[in-house]
């Protein structure tokens, strides 16, 4: 009994009591209901326990279903834990699943008992069925019991090398769970993430990037080698993973590329080709053009573009923000159409998309101008949608379209939704200040609105007129007079205060009316709102200074009233004003300046968009929506001024040969065909080329690694020779290098002479290259050991090289030679410099890039 009682107190809150009451006996009194329910519940739980302990499978299942029902309602069912946990090894699949649900929910509270279930999962982790392994890992990692952290760690490590990509995906999810359970495991988890990032399965990519974002978003160095792979896989990743990857790559790109916005933005399309063609051409460009987009930057933009067609609104939005933050200015507008399409979606989607469009439309009107009509307000829109649309329309207004927009606004002002009508008045005010041609028209329109029946609209109009008049007060004394006449009918405090302020400020333009208004105000002072009282005091002071003859007594009367007001602000203000304007022996030097203080010309307020400073947040983020930094928001860094070394993204073999065990290499093969084939093969052929080439892919992938291995070593060989000859003027050396390589090719009989390409590039024999590279590495003292890779080469050199990987290597070499700024200082081969760069990235030599990133 008492236990049950406790459990009820646990969930506590009037909510649950009420709910429960409704369920059982809605008519009885609260206490009665609670009591009645209490006993039924007790009975219920009692028989649940019996049912769970029965031998019949169906009974157990029925009991579990009821327990899940309890959990769903938020009721406490934790006392059944021992009885439930026994069924964890049940053969019945549904029963098992429901037990899992229960276990995950309550394990945290009943840690000791939860341990009983662990061995079942451990056994299941070794199951031959991948789906069972995955689900075991899933539940094991969801059980938040600190004692089993080592077991989880072990399981994750094992699952990360599982043959099934689905299990590896589950491992990626488990990483985050373990990290939130025990942040001390971070270092180990990063190792696993690093390993999984290299995974080439589309299934894994999204989940591991998610884990990366959660555990170590600052370890950008882990991304380098996987950047191109992620870009190429992106289209085939499941949609939720796409969002995460795109957001991560946006941040990554900002830390790695230089701004495409500076200087003369040259058209890129042709560049990309020229780039791949030959070293010389590429070089010519690099010398003559001030800005050249990094090919990886281009790759990122190119590979995300098709996703604008996704049915998932989150994907479209994330591509849009990627283009907004990364693309050259003239390319951003390709996202417009897709964003406008999203406006057809649900209300909530519209809300977020409109917010982002509002931010964009401030900086780039031209993007959305052609779609202006899509932002016209419909009477069925929700109020916050209407206001956002209004905001965008205001942002889009210019000389050409202002008349259309104003006509549209006229309809809105009459809307039954008064909040919206008031917002429209403000929008008109903003249009009036931004576009000088229509200021007068708008002002006249607003004055007409002063006779509107709805007081919120009138109030808003007054406030807006006040702001507008401040910009050009002299010509508009008749408007002020008109407002003074309306004053008696206006009840909204803000509007009254605004009118008083206007009259006070421009009292010289309305010398006859102002004192009369003050007289009326003196009468009603005590009944006014505070904000109006303050303005009355202000008006009195100003009139006293300009027209003391008529208003001296009135002013004194008002100041006396203010002196005894209940509100301390008003008492304060009164005291201050009195000292300032009424000269007496105590008042100091300030009184002399009273006129200059009170009647100083004041700058007109700038009417600007509420979205003006939203662009400090990355678009599409929660922080952007809230206009405040959300927990865990990762700043988008500024562009790099000097491009960091591009070659870090080049080769993945240098590291792999050390760690990547052959078995995992085999795995990577699976999607290897997608990796670069996308660029070359797919362009002409229909996109379902994933099927073809799968048969050959295994040999391809392995050769690619062979190739690059050999490549790199041969390069390092040539490079070191070169460094002896000339003290490495890196940029001008490309032709020389080529020659050298050709020489080499002649020297050594290459094993892969079926293709011309190969001959040109030059494949050195394994023994020689390893000699070369080892000598070079000893020269420059890099820590990379080549001895074991030599063995691999021997094994791999038999495989047939393919054209595409050749080309790829050519490219990577080009990148190193052409673009690495570091190479100048390092008189070694490209690969050595690559290693050096890696080291630098690790932060030992030059911490600057890392710091910049943070």
């Amino acid at each position, binding site marked *: 009994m008492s236990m049950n009682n406790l459990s009820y107190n646990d969930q506590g809150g009037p*909510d649950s009591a009420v709910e429960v009451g409704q369920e059982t006996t809605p008519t009885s009194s609260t206490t009665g209901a609670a009591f009645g329910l209490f006993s039924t519940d007790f009975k219920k739980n009692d028989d649940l326990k019996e049912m769970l302990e029965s031998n019949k*499978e169906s009974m157990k*299942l029925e009991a579990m*279903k009821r327990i899940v*029902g309890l959990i*769903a309602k*938020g009721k406490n069912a934790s006392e059944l834990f021992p009885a439930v946990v026994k069924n964890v090894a049940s053969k019945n*699949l549904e*029963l098992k*699943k*429901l037990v899992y649900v229960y276990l995950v929910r309550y394990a*945290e509270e009943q840690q000791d008992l939860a341990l009983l279930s662990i061995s079942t999962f451990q056994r299941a982790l070794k199951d031959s069925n991948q*789906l*069972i392994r995955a689900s075991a890992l899933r539940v094991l990692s969801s059980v938040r019991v600190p004692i089993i952290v080592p077991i989880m760690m072990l399981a994750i490590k094992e699952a990360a090398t599982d043959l*099934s990509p*689905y299990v590896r995906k*589950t491992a990626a*999810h488990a990483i*985050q*769970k373990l990290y939130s359970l025990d942040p001390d495991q971070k270092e180990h988890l990063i190792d696993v993430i690093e390993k999984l990032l290299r995974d080439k399965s589309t299934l894994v990519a999204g989940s591991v990037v*998610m884990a990366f974002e959660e555990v170590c978003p600052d370890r950008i160095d882990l991304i380098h080698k996987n950047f191109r792979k992620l870009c190429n896989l992106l289209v085939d990743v499941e949609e*939720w993973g796409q*969002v995460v990857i795109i*957001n991560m790559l946006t941040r990554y790109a900002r830390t790695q590329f230089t701004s495409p916005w500076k200087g003369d933005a040259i058209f890129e399309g042709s560049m990309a080709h020229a780039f791949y063609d030959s070293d010389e051409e590429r070089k010519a460009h690099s010398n003559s053009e001030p800005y050249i987009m990094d090919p990886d930057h281009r790759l990122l933009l190119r590979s995300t573009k*098709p996703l604008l067609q*996704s*049915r998932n*609104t*989150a994907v479209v939005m994330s591509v849009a923000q990627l283009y907004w933050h990364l693309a050259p200015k003239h390319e951003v507008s390709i996202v417009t*159409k*897709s964003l406008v*399409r999203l406006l057809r979606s*649900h209300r*909530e*989607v519209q*809300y*977020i998309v409109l917010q982002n469009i509002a931010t964009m439309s401030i900086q780039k009107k031209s993007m959305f101008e052609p779609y202006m009509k*899509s932002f*016209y307000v*419909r*009477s*069925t829109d*929700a*109020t*916050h949608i209407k206001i956002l649309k209004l905001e965008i329309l205001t942002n889009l207004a210019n000389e050409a379209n202002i008349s259309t927009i104003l006509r549209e606004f006229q309809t809105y002002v*009459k809307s*039954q939704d008064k909040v919206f009508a008031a917002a429209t008045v403000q929008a008109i005010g903003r249009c009036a200040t931004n576009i000088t041609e229509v200021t007068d028209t708008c002002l006249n329109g607003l004055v007409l609105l002063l006779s509107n*029946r709805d007081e919120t609209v009138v109030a808003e109009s007054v406030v807006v007129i006040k702001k507008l008049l401040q910009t050009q007060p002299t010509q508009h004394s008749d408007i002020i007079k008109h407002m003074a006449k309306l004053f008696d009918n206006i009840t909204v405090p803000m509007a009254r205060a605004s009118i008083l302020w206007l009259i006070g400020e421009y009292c010289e333009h309305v010398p006859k009316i102002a004192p009369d208004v003050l007289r009326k105000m003196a009468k009603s002072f005590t009944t006014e709102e505070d904000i109006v009282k303050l303005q009355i005091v202000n008006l009195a002071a100003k009139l006293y200074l300009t027209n003391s003859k008529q208003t001296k007594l009135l002013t004194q009367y008002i100041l006396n009233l203010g002196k005894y007001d209940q509100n301390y602000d008003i008492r304060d203000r009164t005291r201050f004003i009195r000292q300032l304007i009424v000269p007496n022996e105590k008042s100091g030097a300030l009184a002399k300046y009273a006129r200059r203080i009170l009647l100083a010309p004041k700058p007109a307020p700038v009417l600007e968009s509420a979205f003006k400073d939203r662009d400090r947040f990355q678009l*599409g983020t*929660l*922080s952007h929506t*809230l206009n405040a930094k*959300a*927990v*865990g928001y*990762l700043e988008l860094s500024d562009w790099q001024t000097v491009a960091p070394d591009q070659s870090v993204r080049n080769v993945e073999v240098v590291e792999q040969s050390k760690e990547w065990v052959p078995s995992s290499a085999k795995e990577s093969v699976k999607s290897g065909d997608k990796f670069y084939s996308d660029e070359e093969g797919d362009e002409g052929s*229909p*996109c*379902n080329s*994933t099927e073809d080439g799968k048969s050959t892919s295994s040999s391809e992938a392995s050769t690619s690694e062979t190739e690059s291995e050999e490549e790199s070593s041969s390069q390092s060989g040539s490079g070191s020779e070169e460094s002896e000859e000339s003290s490495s003027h890196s940029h001008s050396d490309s032709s020389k290098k080529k020659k050298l390589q050709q020489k080499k090719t002649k020297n050594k009989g290459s094993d892969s002479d079926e293709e011309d390409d190969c001959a040109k590039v030059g494949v050195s024999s394994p023994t020689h290259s390893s000699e070369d590279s080892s000598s070079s590495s000893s020269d420059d003292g890099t820590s990379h050991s080549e001895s074991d890779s030599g063995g691999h080469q021997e094994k791999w050199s038999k495989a047939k090289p393919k054209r595409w990987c050749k080309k790829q290597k050519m490219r990577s070499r080009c990148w190193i030679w052409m673009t690495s700024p570091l190479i100048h200082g390092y008189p070694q081969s490209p690969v050595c410099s690559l290693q050096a760069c890696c080291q630098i990235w690790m932060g030992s030599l030059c911490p600057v890039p890392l710091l910049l990133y943070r």
Partner: protein
Amino acid sequence: MIHSLFLVNSSGDIFLEKHWKSVVSRSVCDYFFEAQERASEPENVPPVIPTPHHYLINVFRHKIFFVAVIQTEVPPLFVIEFLHRVVDTFQDYFGVCSEAAIKDNVVVVYELLEEMLDNGFPLATESNILKELIKPPTILRTVVNTITGSTNVGEQLPTGQLSVVPWRRTGVKYTNNEAYFDVVEEIDAIIDKSGSTITAEIQGVIDACVKLTGMPDLTLSFMNPRLLDDVSFHPCVRFKRWEAERILSFIPPDGNFRLLSYHVSSQNLVAIPVYVKHNITFREGSSQGRFELTLGPKQTMGKAVESVLVSSQMPRGVLNVNLTPSQGTYTFDPVTKLLSWDVGKINPQKLPSLKGSMSLQTGASKPDENPTFNIQFKIQQLAISGLKVNRLDMYGEKYKPFKGIKYMTKAGKFQVRT
């Protein structure tokens, strides 16, 4: 990412909660209730609500609020899109997504939610995969289950999740192989007082119902693909093929799905199939107003305009209306001031009209604005943009499927200002 989910009904009770990470107390919803109170209509509740320790992102559908609890930065659309998928899945499973349906199927709901998210990150949202994991409850199955004691949980493990085409079940078999495609176009328009079009655009979708055995590979081509200005695809459509040849090539999911949604380029003039003549006046000082509304067809390409429904939010000052429709029936709710007139089919020979008087609150000033009319209609066998499917071919399987294509035009957000 998504920490917890609370389902709140229209009377403000939390009737279901699910946690994917540690448990978040349901008191967090108090912030949501606050926001709900502040909003006059349920639609006006802001989708994103910050609280001191969490962020609440909610969607409102079928009179239920789906409130997701978030703890850290996440793209809000990610959560919103996911919540909508959850609603779609429930609808798919239970036919309706109502409080009663969810309460009746609480176990299935829980099993579904468990599969859809892992640690707050979407795992399986494809309806085909989910249906393999958890079978939708049908009456027959419920009966069978109670007798035989078998379960709703799929016996075999879902292999779809592992395949190259995760949206399609494996081992699909039908005796009648059929593929139906519905081309449905919606006209969004705003018509102003004088009857001229302020804005009009056409949005369309192709919904498919494909029941084909095995792994068919379909291609669908259009007579005039240039009409499609902006498209978004189901993930099954091969994007590059579309880019290159403007042909939809895909391995379809099994069952119902949305193949394509498109927007017709705005250069094309949009044909507006109906016109509205109206005369609504409120006289100053009098407590009566006159109301006259006539509908007529226009540019319908010879097809009949059906299922016409006119609705309007009347100004607050209107107490009641006394109208006579020439056809159909009308209703007026004096509390919400919602007038709706179910017209039915428009007969071009005898135009439907609604005439009569409105009684206004005495003493109240005349309303500023005349009401806006929302019009719904349907036109069968017509795609108003002129889009035509050229042919549908199947590869990869031997049998000959039955193919069907249907066109329809509907009103989307079609408003007439008066």
